[in-house]
């Protein structure tokens, strides 16, 4: 039989050995090894991760395997000469998981299916439980009141009919989870759960057909329902994370324009191959790393490097995939595609950083393992004792112990609070991707901020203006704005905020120097000092570039230099206030930027921050945070760019901005959607509060257990009482969690919902 299945399995997976198929998700390394990234369906906890890492990592030819339990993504490094990829796929599926090559569409698909199934399970468990409980009430009342045995038999039979789908369909994840845990010799919480449900159901079915003895359909369905709720809440958080991971692939444009003999054609990004000649429109993202074919172009790499100025790329220069084309349509010869691009490289750095993150989760899992072993041990001891005292009662007492010991209150205590806190924070303008954040936030000692796009916006504004001629300042600004209105250069955008009634004619751009044109019949030049000095008749001595740390532009007419504009980065509104709030809470603030030292210093001085570092690469940012972590600090990182993504993944808590890149958002634990750093202050308060409530809940759940366990073991508690008490306890825990939503502080600025964003986007035109 197994040979047949194996043969079939190999036939199923063999398509993944074809190079054309592999090109989508496999990268070849220089040393002959290959890396495949895939999505593994069925991974639910770190026990699954351990199992996969042990079994797949142990195959000959596999050099390394890393599985992310949260996003169920896996990365396998293997030697294609020793073992074909199809064998790896077959081995993973033999363990009971479903491997898929990682691509955005598959994520979406798997996501939808998982969401639907968990909803079906929850609702069937809920409706079924209600029915079974109503029958159970009748049965209990009937037991006291001498019910007609015929009716009792009938009620038990219908209970069986309703309970069967609840246990066999809604409860299935617990059985498969328990089986997987036992096979991997790492029993999880699923084992006692499955044991209790399975035993209660089997015994009830047996007693129903036998016509005597107790039935426990009520306990079993109630148990399944409450655990399904806990699992659903947990899954909701993970789904959100998964959906944001899918955004990673969407960062890239879906179609690109390829130049072929005699014309252009639109092709899918998947069909792009090295050597293709591409046309990239202005304002579009380069889909792959490439070489500029002709014409000088200007690209915005600020998302990749943090450099706030546009970078000039000449024919023969490389442009990185993911950077933005600012100028006219560019022709680029593709060098690397997809998984080989700079962006993809940073992506792998992120995964590495996240996996090396110190995790409290692992400790929790190990504790859960011990807890399970202890519960099973106690149940066994109690069972043996009662077998010796009174064999007829042994079964129901063991059942009561199992139901009591694995209380939903304990399972619900944390997810319920996190769900309430998460939705409350979403209302304030902070999306939490990873509930662990709430645990970590209040421990944070240091806050590290990126500069470009985080403290500042991706926009320049006019700072100080100095006038040299008789022309008043507002007239100079007006002329400058009229000239710059014709340009797409980032510096020109600084003047966009200024309304200009005057129109400029004959505007001509001189690359790297400035603009010239006429306004109201007079000729003007705006740009670098040399550029305007060539033009103006008068001496430029004494005007001087002055403070060279800033970007300065000059305006001149034929006679003289008229004005000097300092162009500075615009601070994000509310930033200064938020930083003061952080300081008031005793957090140390550091700026870590990929930009040059000068602009970083300017911003740091404006905000009164002493600790800053500039010109950091993504790797050195990560190193800096690692250093702080090793010194015992807990670091919260706030960033928005692709270059921030690795450090976001490596920090204890990471926060991305909604206006930033999706790569940064994918790597971060939470995303500020209202663009106000002050939201994080509210989040700190919520974290403290939710931690308090989690503690209350956990101590209640544990206390209840300690009280109920001896009662169950001594036979004072029937299984239905255990199930009822457990449900009441779960209800209490949930209600306590709901208290949190009323205690959450109101944000200083109104949060921006999707509607507000749409409205404001329209207002901007």
């Amino acid at each position, binding site marked *: 039989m197994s040979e047949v299945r194996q043969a079939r399995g190999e036939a199923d997976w063999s398509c993944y050995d074809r190079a054309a198929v592999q090109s989508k998700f496999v990268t070849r390394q220089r040393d002959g090894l290959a890396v495949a990234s895939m999505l593994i369906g069925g991974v639910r906890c770190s026990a699954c991760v351990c199992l996969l890492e042990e079994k797949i990592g142990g195959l000959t030819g596999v050099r390394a395997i890393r599985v992310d339990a949260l996003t169920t993504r896996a990365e396998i490094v293997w030697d294609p000469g020793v073992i074909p990829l199809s064998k790896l796929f077959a081995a993973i599926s033999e363990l009971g998981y479903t491997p898929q090559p990682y691509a955005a569409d598959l994520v979406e698909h798997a996501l939808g299916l998982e969401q*639907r199934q968990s909803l*079906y399970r929850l609702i069937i468990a809920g409706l079924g439980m209600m029915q079974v409980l109503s029958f159970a009430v009748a049965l209990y009342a009937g037991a006291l009141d001498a019910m007609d045995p015929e*009716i009792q038999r*009938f*009620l038990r039979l*219908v209970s069986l*009919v*309703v309970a069967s789908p609840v246990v066999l369909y809604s409860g299935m994840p617990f059985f498969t989870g328990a089986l997987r845990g036992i096979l991997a010799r790492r029993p999880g919480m699923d084992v006692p759960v499955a044991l209790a449900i399975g035993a209660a159901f089997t015994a009830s079915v047996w007693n129903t057909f036998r016509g005597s003895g107790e039935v426990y359909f009520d306990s079993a369905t109630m148990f399944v329902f409450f655990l399904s709720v806990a699992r659903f809440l947990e899954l909701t958080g993970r789904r959100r994370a998964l959906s944001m991971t899918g955004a990673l692939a969407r960062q890239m444009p879906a179609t690109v324009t390829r130049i072929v003999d005699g014309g252009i054609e639109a092709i899918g990004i998947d069909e792009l191959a090295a050597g293709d000649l591409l046309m990239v429109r202005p304002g579009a993202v380069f889909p792959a790393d490439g070489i500029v074919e002709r014409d000088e172009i200007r690209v915005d790499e600020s998302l990749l490097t943090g450099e706030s100025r546009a970078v000039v790329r000449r024919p023969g220069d490389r442009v990185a995939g993911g950077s933005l084309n600012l100028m006219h349509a560019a022709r680029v010869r593709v060098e690397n595609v997809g998984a080989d691009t700079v962006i993809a490289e940073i992506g792998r750095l992120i995964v590495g950083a996240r996996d090396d993150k110190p995790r409290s989760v692992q400790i929790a899992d190990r504790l859960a393992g011990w807890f399970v072993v202890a519960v099973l041990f106690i149940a066994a001891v109690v069972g043996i004792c009662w077998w010796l005292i009174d064999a007829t009662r042994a079964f129901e007492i063991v059942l009561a112990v199992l139901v009591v010991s694995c209380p939903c209150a304990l399972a619900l205590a944390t997810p319920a609070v996190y769900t309430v806190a998460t939705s409350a924070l979403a209302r304030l303008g902070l999306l939490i991707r990873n509930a662990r954040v709430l645990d970590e936030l209040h421990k944070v000692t240091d806050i590290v901020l990126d500069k470009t796009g985080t403290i500042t916006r991706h926009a320049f504004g006019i700072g100080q203006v100095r006038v040299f001629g008789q022309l008043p300042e507002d007239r100079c600004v007006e002329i400058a704005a009229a000239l710059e209105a014709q340009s797409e250069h980032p510096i020109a955008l600084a003047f966009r905020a200024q309304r200009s009634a005057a129109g400029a004619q004959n505007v001509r751009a001189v690359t790297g120097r400035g603009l010239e044109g006429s306004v109201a019949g007079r000729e003007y030049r705006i740009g670098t000092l040399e550029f305007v000095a060539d033009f103006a008749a008068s001496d430029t001595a004494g005007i001087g570039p002055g403070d060279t740390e800033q970007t300065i532009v000059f305006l001149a007419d034929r006679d003289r230099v008229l004005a000097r504009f300092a162009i500075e980065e615009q601070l994000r509104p509310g930033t200064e206030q938020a930083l003061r709030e952080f300081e008031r809470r005793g957090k140390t603030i550091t700026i870590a930027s990929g930009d040059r030292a000068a602009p970083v210093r300017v911003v740091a001085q404006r905000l009164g921050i002493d600790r800053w570092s500039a010109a950091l690469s993504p790797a050195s940012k990560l190193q800096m945070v690692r250093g702080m972590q090793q010194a015992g600090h807990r670091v919260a990182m706030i960033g928005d760019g692709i270059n921030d993504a690795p450090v976001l993944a490596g920090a204890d808590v990471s926060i991305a901005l909604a206006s930033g890149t999706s790569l940064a958002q994918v790597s971060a634990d939470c995303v500020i959607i209202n663009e106000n750093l002050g939201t994080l202050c509210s989040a700190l308060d919520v974290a403290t509060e939710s931690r308090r409530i989690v503690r209350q809940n956990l101590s209640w759940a544990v206390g209840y257990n300690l009280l109920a366990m001896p009662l169950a073991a001594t036979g004072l508690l029937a299984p239905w009482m255990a199930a009822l008490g457990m449900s009441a306890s779960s209800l209490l825990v949930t209600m306590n969690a709901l208290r949190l939503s009323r205690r959450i502080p109101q944000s200083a600025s109104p949060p921006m919902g999707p509607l507000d964003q749409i409205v404001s*986007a329209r207002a901007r035109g």
Partner: protein
Amino acid sequence: MTIIYMLIPLGLVLLVAAVAAFIWAVRSGQFEDLATPAERILLDDDRRPPE
């Protein structure tokens, strides 16, 4: 009391109907996005939000 032999199966039929209705609702995508429909009603019909 023999009426329960009819009423309970009837209740079960309703239960099946409720489950079927729910499954239909999930299949037709009503649970995919719970936030946007509430706000969509406030938007003008003739203008689509920018993509």
